[in-house]
Structure formats: structure tokens, C-alpha cells
């Protein structure tokens, strides 16, 4: 599923599925959530249909603080996909502060003038939301300290 942005290049959109509709509904409300099993209470690193620990189909969503730390990052200097050609652009893996098993991939938004040379593993980041369509808002992260 894609969507045309202002530059008329199709950006890749998520397809809410039976195991993560709740994530995208929360994102639409600008809330970051993590999935957990309502039977054994295990928080999952990635949304899925069945609990990998107790095999229950029952799950729900926990509000996350939206704060995290850089687990890794990489800056792209040559575009691979036409919709992500605003290079250099940095993606990161963010470890959530309150649910460390959950790591999210995100574009990393950096303040003006900050380059990847100034990034450090463990640097603090926080979530914000970008409304892509009427249905989809995307959680992304920005640095909170430099």
C-alpha cells in the first residue's frame, strides 16, 4: 500500500493487520504502544498474533512513554528507494526506555546542523508522530540530547 506525498513519489505505508491494528489505531491518536499477552503478561518485541511464551491468542496494548535510547543507527548516502531519496537520511533502532525488549526502527530526525558524527549509542530520543494519511500516522523519533 503506498501513498503519494507532495513530491508525487510513492511512500511505503504499513498495512494494519489482525495482530497490529491496535498499534496503528493508537498511532493515529499519537500514542506509542507495545503489545503484551493478557494471559501471561509478557511484552512482545514485535506485534504478532500468538504469544510466543504461552501460545494465547489474547493480547492488548500498553502505553509506552515514547522515550528511548539509540541502539544503533546508519546514514544512507545513496538512495535505494525513490520515496526515500532525501539523502543523507539516518535510520535508527531505538530501544524503548520502559520496555527494553521492544526495539523500533525509525527515521532519526536530527536538529539542524547535527550530523551522524555526533551520534552516540545510548543517546536519548523521543517519539513524535507524522500523519501520512487519514488512517496512518507514523511514529518517528528525534534526538532529545546532542
Amino acid at each position, binding site marked *: 500500500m503506498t501513498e503519494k506525498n507532495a513530491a508525487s513519489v510513492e*511512500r*511505503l*505505508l*504499513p*498495512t*494494519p*493487520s489482525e495482530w*497490529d491494528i491496535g498499534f496503528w489505531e493508537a498511532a493515529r491518536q499519537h500514542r506509542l504502544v507495545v503489545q503484551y499477552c493478557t494471559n501471561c503478561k509478557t511484552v512482545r*518485541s*514485535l*506485534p*504478532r498474533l500468538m504469544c*510466543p511464551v504461552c501460545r494465547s491468542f489474547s493480547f492488548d496494548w500498553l502505553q509506552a512513554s515514547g522515550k528511548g535510547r539509540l*541502539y*544503533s*543507527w*546508519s*546514514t*544512507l*548516502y*545513496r538512495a*535505494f*528507494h*525513490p*520515496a*526515500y531519496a532525501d539523502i543523507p*537520511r539516518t*535510520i535508527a*533502532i531505538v*530501544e524503548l526506555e520502559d520496555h*527494553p*525488549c*521492544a*526495539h*523500533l*526502527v*525509525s*527515521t532519526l530526525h536530527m536538529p539542524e546542523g547535527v550530523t*551522524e558524527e555526533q551520534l552516540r*549509542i545510548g543517546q536519548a530520543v523521543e517519539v513524535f508522530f507524522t500523519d*501520512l494519511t487519514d488512517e496512518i500516522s*507514523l511514529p*518517528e523519533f528525534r534526538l532529545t540530547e546532542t
Partner: protein
Amino acid sequence: MNSIKDRAVIVGIGATEFSACSGRSELRLALEAIMASLDDAGLDPAQVDGLVRFGLAQTNAAEPWIAHNLGLPMVRYWSCVDFGGGAGCALVGQAAMAVATGMANYVVIYRTLNGRSGRRPGTSETMTLYHGQDPSSENYGHPHGLTAPSQMFALIARRRMHEYGMTNEQLGKLAVTIRGYANRNPHAQMHAKPLTLDEYLAAPMLVSPLRKYDMCLQTDGAVAMVVTTPERARDLKQKPVFVKAATQASMAECQGPLQSFSAVSDLMKTPGTLAAAEVYRTAGLGPKDIDVAQLYDCFTPTLMMQLENFGFCSAGEAGRFIEDGHIEPNGSIPINTAGGNLGEAYIHGVNHILEGVRQIRGTSTSQVANAQTCLVTSGLPFPTSALILGGEQG
């Protein structure tokens, strides 16, 4: 005995040239490689009754069409192993099981692609081939522009720098060493192109911290091999190469074919350690018993993980292991002796199996003296496979 050990042998190998533009279809390349492997074995094509195909196929070379073109009177076994670069060694496992159980007599394995002149692996075009197979990547990676495998290995490399102190110079030394093997192989794409550490470091940063020479080639070409039982091998031309062990390996965290590590809690936990435990256990061997290894090298940091996961050095020590010269031709464990995905060709590591066969036969361009055991591995850290080849029964 519930083991594949010594119940199957590779008796023929064949390959097209490896180039940036084959000028031929993937179907044509596959048929050429298959015929070359049958000629190498001394086998009449009509005897082939099994076909095993590498899954990530951009082609019309599926098993029935290959059988149709080869004129096979009866095919009693076919299979296809999916999920990209982790599949290579599993192809041999499949063929070995077929002949060991008597489900087929002679199984041909093949992999073909115009990966440079046609649809290129690692690009957004190839990404569409995985559609539906990796929902986590599609929902949590792609929307953020994480669309190419090199980006994920770059994230792993950055984390290795933090956890292990890995340096760009160590990645560069690795790239230069593997290129050296390619330079000694007339059939390697990079045969005539030496690489120095200065050139490596001067090359443009593409997806930090990876540069141009950290990345594997893009190749047009095909490879094939023939598997049968040790008994049937006696009537054929070549010294048989024994399958000592073969395994596939994955785990819950590997949730997809390619970007399966996009959000796991430990980037360093890979199915490579599972694969290593299985092949060593079933072969009755350990890392010190391996004379030479062909390790999947889509990117240089991948190769470091391979050395560690398969026990040639401990976790985080691969950089120093390489600096100390262990993977050089006169080192303790020469690797990727035909040049690998980085320097020979990117045939998704199926070319590594052919080089393993050459090492056991004694025909490699960087031959390890009296090589009796060769480990071959497939891609990490996604669902993977591994193989140990040997020169003798027992």
C-alpha cells in the same frame, strides 16, 4: 543411524561465467550450468530424477520448465528452499535426503540469476519478491525507508563497533583479504581487480559505516551441482565429495526472510550458533577439524558474525582474528577461497558450495593442502543453513 552423514555425495559441479551482463536469459544460464554439472559428473541428463531450486527466483526456471527443457523422462523429487541467502546449503540437505531415502537417484541443484543486468538483489525491486513473507519489515521497516539489506547490516556493523570495538580498518582488511582470493581465481568477477586498504578506505561511504567494498557483487550467472549416493558415485568421473552434515537453522526471532532482525532485542543473537551446533554435532567434528571454510559474505560484517558463530574465534574477536592473519591462505582457517560473494560472484552463496567441492577434490585456485573437511555456511542472521563436506567416508 539418524544422520545424513556419508549417505550422499556431490559428484558434479557446473557454472556459467560470472559477469555484469550475461546477454542470456536466466533460463538459458540455468540450463547451461546444469549441463556443465552433468558433463562434469559423466552423467546422462536422462538419468536425472530430482531437482532442487534456490527459492528467491526472478526467473522462469522453475522445476517443471527445467525438466521440460532437459527432456527428463521422470522426476520423482523436487523442492525449493526459500528465503533468500539463507537457503544455499539447505539445497544440498534436501538433495541428500532425497537420495539417502531412495526417493531419487540423481538430484540436480541449481541457482540462476541476472543479478546485475536484470533485477538486482538488495534493491527496492527485489523487495517486492518478499511481499507478504515478512510483515514486520513491511510495517515497521519499510515505512521508515529501511528497504535494503545493506542498511540492516550497516545497523549491525554500527552495533558491533559499539559492543566489540570493531573498526573500519578491520572491515577493510577483511575485504582486501577476500579480494586476494578472487584475484587468484580466473573465473572470479574481481579476478583482475586487486584492492588495497587505502582504496577500501577511500571508497565512498554508502550506508554508514559500510563503504563500497563492504558490499557483495551483483552478478549474472548460474551454478549447478549433482548429488547421488556413494554407491552410484563409483560409476562416475569425479572423486565424490561427501556430505558429512547438513542443517537448516532458525528461531522465533527470525520472523522473516530477509529483514528478520529489524526489531529483535539482540542483533548479535543469530541462528548461526544453532546451525554450528547442529553441523558439528552430526558430523562429529569441531571448528578445529575444519581445514577450510566457505562463509556467506553478503557484506563484510556478516563474515565477522560467521567466524564467531561457527566457533573459529570467540564473540567480538573476529576483527582481531582477521588482523592476525588467520583467514589468509597460510592462516589457520583460509576462507572464501574462490573470492566469495564479495569477489567471485553473488550467486547467493551457492557458488560457495562449488568451491567447497573443489577444495575437497584438490582443484581450487587457492587450494588448502590436503583439505579433508570444508564448512560451508549460508546467510545470517536470518533463517539459514550450513553444510560440512568431506573427502572420505567415516
